[in-house]
């Protein structure tokens, strides 16, 4: 006489979730029951198809709605060199060393202003903006390189005073941005007048300056 159908256990059987005894019971039943074998095969097909579903993009472009909610998107030609503090969370004790931070920041900013005064326009509250169209690419790269070198030197001088975990995170981020800069430079070598690549390179430089200036203002580890 055939045992009771095992329909309710077939998903668990398929997913290999049954213990040895239950598994043996299901297999014994399946060997003699075409109906349950057919159900099992149907479930197997459903699972197989579910695992190979292709993703498809939304029917309409959702980016404009996202861009409008996260802020204005038409800033591609302006590089804000002001540290974006909302992206970094510092503790109260860290803020206590603000005097040191300000001193280092001033040094970096002074170097920037004096060496590249003709190329970089300063506005009140130490806000710097670099207009993409204002500078030839080679000069711009030179300016950024020099500014980055100076800030890097300032950071190196303070490295031993900073929290090692923080330094590790900073270095990891710098490596990633350096990679983006290297990629953009390499692409620009092949296509020097490409406006997108120029803009992308400038943004990457801007981010690196931001990050270095953030790092240079970090307080010493307590």
């Amino acid at each position, binding site marked *: 006489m055939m045992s009771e159908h095992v*329909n*309710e256990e*077939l*998903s*668990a059987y398929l997913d290999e*979730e049954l213990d040895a005894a239950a598994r043996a019971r299901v297999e014994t039943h399946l060997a003699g029951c075409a109906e349950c074998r057919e*159900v099992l095969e*149907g*479930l197997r*097909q*459903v*699972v197989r*198809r*579910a*695992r*190979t*579903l*292709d*993703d*498809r*993009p*939304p*029917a*309409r472009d*959702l*980016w404009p*709605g*996202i*861009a409008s*909610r*996260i*802020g204005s*998107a038409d*800033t*591609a030609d302006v590089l*804000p060199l002001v540290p*974006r503090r*909302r*992206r*970094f*969370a510092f503790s109260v004790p860290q803020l206590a060393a603000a005097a040191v931070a300000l001193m280092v920041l001033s040094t970096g900013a002074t170097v920037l202003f004096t060496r590249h005064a003709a190329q970089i326009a300063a506005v009140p509250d130490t806000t710097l903006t670099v207009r993409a169209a204002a500078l030839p690419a080679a000069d711009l790269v030179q300016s950024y390189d020099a500014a980055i070198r100076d800030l890097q030197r300032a950071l190196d001088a303070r490295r031993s005073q900073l929290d090692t975990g923080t330094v590790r995170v900073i270095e*990891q*981020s710098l490596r*990633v*941005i350096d*990679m*983006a800069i290297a*990629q953009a430079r390499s692409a620009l070598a092949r296509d020097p007048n490409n406006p997108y690549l120029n*803009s*992308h390179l400038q*943004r*990457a430089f801007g*981010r690196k300056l*931001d*990050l270095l200036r953030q790092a240079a203002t970090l307080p010493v580890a307590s």
Partner: protein
Amino acid sequence: MAPAERRTEAGLPQTPDNLLAQADSERADVALAAAGDQSAFERLYRLHAAKVHSLVRRMVASESDADELTQDVFVRVWQRLSSYRGDAAFGTWLHRLAVNLVINWQRSASRSRRLFAEDAEPDLAAAPRRSLESAMDLEDALVLLPAGARQVFVLHDVEGYRHEEIAGLLGVTTGTTKAQLHRARMLMRGHLER
């Protein structure tokens, strides 16, 4: 029939070189976006929009809700990028955030009360008409599932979550998720073989 060629999110064949290139480019864009670069964030959106929208659409069974929730997901990602530590791949982190957001949305919309009710029935108005007359594809059949069974099916069979994870996310027992999964598969089998 030959299996479909697997592709990266950028639409390139999944060769080791393409996967590495995508990962490098994505890491750079994540760092740039975390520093406030909207163009980098738009590239991340373009890279992941299809995957996120497909996940959300399958979970909520509504194109318009999926559009709105996908936008919510990316706005939330933008707001939380500074908390992304890189412990998991960015895509995995984004995916988790999307799943949690959808589940919370369904909870806040008081949908959970009927999500796992025995008599919970699908919104047939959302089902494609042709599905009632001819063989359906899997996406069509998903719409016909009751909401609770659909969520478990999508998370387990499409996305590869384990029962313990799904139970934790939904606040139910693994016994419930296993029963819902079997129910979903049986209904899907019926729809697909009709």
